[in-house]
């Protein structure tokens, strides 16, 4: 996952968490506090109700900090959940027996919100929250039993509030988690699209490279193939030399893209090897280390020397002198005729093709000088 994708997901996730914490805070201050303070005189033990409100606040603050900062709770989540249940029991105990299903017993419907933010980051949040809400129902039913309030009115009130609270709390939790999931899907979807786009671009590039390569191969061997197609005699030495030159060009095209430590040397060696197989004695001498050179420079450096090698009848002396600022490739051979300097050009590469030793030899030198 890329950094952008991670941040998209984090933003969604953090937004949902903030919303959950806000809901809990609003509920606790807007409803719980108002009930506790407003109905203070109606409690059997008002201080117990007040203490329960404070305990709720403490647990809520700890859970909110952990949730927003994405850190884990100091102990396990369960002691806090037990504390929330205790808040529920404490407020119930603080109420007059007749008030267990009235507004004074705010905690019974409210602790579910606390549980929502406590269990939020857990992968098993749905199971954990359900367990807690069930336990809260049991605690509340216990309270009703102790208060002797199993009359139809109280039970129906209990059912309405329980179903309402549980629906809201479980629903909010599910909604928040759904947002997270949606963000993940969006990111995965965008990844898939990006991958498909990258694959398409790569395929286009490969295709373009292949076309360029075909064009190079065609220009390398088309003249000699045309010559042969027009009925040229393969026994004719000139035709054979043209064929050898075509073969050398193909060899260069194959060798120059090989992944070799020294591509220039590798290309020259591969061509020298082919020429040797024709029975030409090749003396290959090198001095110095070739600096890294771009492909077009390597091409311009090797083209004419390789053609010179290909034209050799019996022997060729191939030399390479390299310094960090200069690379000189030369071929001295018994090739019969002068060839035109190669069509491949590159900046800072100069090529000389000259007759040598009274016209009995051909001397080719390509020289790259660092700009």
């Amino acid at each position, binding site marked *: 996952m890329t950094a952008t994708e991670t941040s998209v997901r984090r933003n969604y996730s953090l937004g949902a968490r903030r919303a959950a914490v806000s809901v809990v805070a609003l509920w606790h201050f807007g409803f719980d506090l108002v009930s506790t303070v407003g109905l203070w005189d109606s409690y059997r033990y008002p201080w117990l109700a007040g203490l329960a409100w404070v305990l709720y606040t403490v647990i809520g603050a700890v859970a909110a900090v952990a949730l927003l900062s994405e850190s884990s709770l100091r102990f396990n989540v369960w002691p806090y959940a037990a504390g929330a249940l205790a808040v529920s029991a404490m407020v119930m105990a603080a109420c007059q027996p007749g008030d267990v299903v009235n507004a004074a017993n705010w905690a019974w419907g409210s602790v579910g919100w606390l549980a929502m933010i406590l269990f939020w980051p857990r992968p098993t949040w749905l199971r954990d929250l359900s367990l807690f809400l069930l336990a809260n129902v049991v605690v509340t039913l216990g309270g009703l039993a102790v208060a002797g309030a199993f009359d139809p009115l109280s039970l129906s009130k209990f059912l309405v509030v329980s179903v309402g609270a549980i629906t809201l709390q479980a629903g909010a939790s599910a909604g928040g988690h759904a947002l997270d999931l949606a963000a993940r899907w969006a990111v995965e979807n965008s990844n898939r699209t990006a991958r498909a786009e990258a694959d398409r671009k790569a395929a286009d590039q490969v295709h373009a490279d292949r076309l360029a390569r075909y064009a190079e191969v065609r220009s390398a061997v088309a003249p000699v193939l045309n010559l042969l197609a027009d009925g040229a005699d393969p026994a004719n030495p000139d035709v054979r030399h043209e064929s050898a030159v075509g073969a050398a060009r193909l060899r260069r095209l194959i060798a120059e893209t090989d992944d070799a430590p020294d591509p220039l040397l590798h290309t020259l060696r591969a061509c020298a090897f082919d020429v040797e197989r024709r029975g030409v004695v090749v*003396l290959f*001498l*090198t*001095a*110095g280390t070739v600096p890294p050179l771009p492909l077009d420079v390597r091409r311009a450096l090797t083209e004419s020397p390789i053609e010179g090698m290909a034209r050799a009848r019996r022997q060729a*002396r191939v030399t390479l002198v390299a*310094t960090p600022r200069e690379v000189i490739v030369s071929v001295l051979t018994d090739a019969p005729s002068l060839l035109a300097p190669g069509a491949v050009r590159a900046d800072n590469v100069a090529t000389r093709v000259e007759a040598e*030793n009274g016209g009995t030899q051909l001397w080719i*030198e390509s020289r790259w000088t660092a700009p």
Partner: protein
Amino acid sequence: MDREPLDRPVTLAVVEDTPVVLEGIRSWVAADPGNRVEIVASGNTVDSVLDGAGAHADVLLLDLELDNGVNSLPRIPELVAAGRRVVVYSVHEDDATVMAVLQAGASTFIAKNETKEHCVDTIVAVARDRPYVPPVMAGALVAADGQTSRPMLSGREREALLLWFQGMNKQSVALRMGISEATVKQYIERARVKYASTGRAAPTKTTLLARAIQDGLITADDIIEYQSLAAEGHVRD
């Protein structure tokens, strides 16, 4: 090549453990019209050759890699310190090997692929304490000079060495550079003399420099500059 008459043939000791190569050397020496060289000793190891008939040979021809896996390079300094003129030949013709051999104090280096043309001329030149640069060594000098921060060779010397390395004869090099053959020879030999003053000191190097001054190849002023470079090189060793 230098064909001035000798009062006696140059005596040569050969350290070579491959019989066919030794036979080749014998035949090249025998084929020399002036019979300028006489092989007085040969053997598988440096010690066996020098303990016997080779003890007073003018020149020692040394194969760099003997078949028993011994590399002769570490022996060169002690041999040249004892005043021996050492000619090293090897199948390894890369510039690093060539320069290592020259730095160690050998008089010259010949690649095995060029031994036939240059063997006898090299030995005679070395016996007279004159520089001799076979083409492979010329290539190594050009590459080595281009890699240093303070090149010692002049542009013309480089050009002459390069064409010589590329396979032209001295007449062709002269024609191409628009100078006389003697000047080509001078350029190439002077390049060798310049590099003789680098690396560790050796009596053979001193005589080479002295002879170069005597022949007018370089002046005494040049020597001072080369030796200061040599001293620098020596500190780096």
